[in-house]
């Protein structure tokens, strides 16, 4: 699964234990792929002394703040970027 810039994505609500680089507050949230940053060894494997290979694509993903926090104080245009590995993303096909 490769994502193009602009693709709507949902962060998997996985409860995978251990060293993961996906913050809890983004799990299950819908955003968009801003860009592909590059490919890096998987930190979830690196942390335990493995090679982390094959490298995994890492995306810059954007989220509207008002989609993350119900009581967000600020304009609807405020947003947040986080860097999310491809294996934590699934396509979001729901309507906006």
């Amino acid at each position, binding site marked *: 699964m490769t994502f193009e810039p602009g693709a709507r994505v949902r962060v998997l609500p996985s409860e995978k234990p251990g060293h993961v*680089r*996906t*913050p809890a*507050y983004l799990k299950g949230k819908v955003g968009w792929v801003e860009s592909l*940053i*590059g490919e*890096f060894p998987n*930190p979830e494997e690196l942390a335990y002394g493995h090679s982390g290979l094959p490298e995994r694509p*890492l995306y*810059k993903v954007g989220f509207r*703040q008002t989609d*993350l*926090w119900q009581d*967000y*104080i*600020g*304009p609807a*245009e*405020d*947003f*947040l*970027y*986080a*860097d*999310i*590995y491809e294996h934590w993303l699934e396509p979001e096909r729901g309507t906006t």
Partner: protein
Amino acid sequence: MSDHHSHEEPVGITSPYAARIRAIEALLLEKGILTEPEVQDSISYMEARSPANGAKLVARAWVDPDFKALLLSDGKAAASELGMAPEHPAELIVVENTPEVHNLIVCTLCSCYPRAILGRPPDWYKSFEYRSRAVKEPRAVIREFGFEPPEGGEVIVHDSTADVRYMVLPMRPTDTEDLSEEELAELVTRDSLVGVNVPRAPSRTGHG
């Protein structure tokens, strides 16, 4: 204090964390995983880096549009051009503040920070309070540091969750047309490179 530590221990500080780090360091040396010169090199590496590096990058970008373009497209290349050696596996992305957009950097998972350029992060950057509030109420956090994000503008938070380190390119303060690059660099604070504030205003000496 034992005499085989050639780097200085802060006087009067005996926190359990410091004791634990000393014990781990001693074990790593004893088992031959690290050598004392490697530990010293690592300390020197970190102490050679400071927010002054970020200030130099910003001041050059303010006076040189080509350098600014490079800084925004390839942060490591720009740092290398000014003689900094940002050798670190993580990418460096520099994000630009404009009248419409104010950027704020945080690492909610730990304390990722562009150490290869700026050195160690400030303690507040690593605090639970900053890490949890910066993503949820960034405007309130910025206001508490002393800057009011402009009405009608966007605040964009960058959570450094993975293999990228972020630095803000703040806006050049007004009334700085006559300042040299070195004088401009002195206006650039560490806080402005994280986005919790903006650079200092120039001192008005000599102007009514």
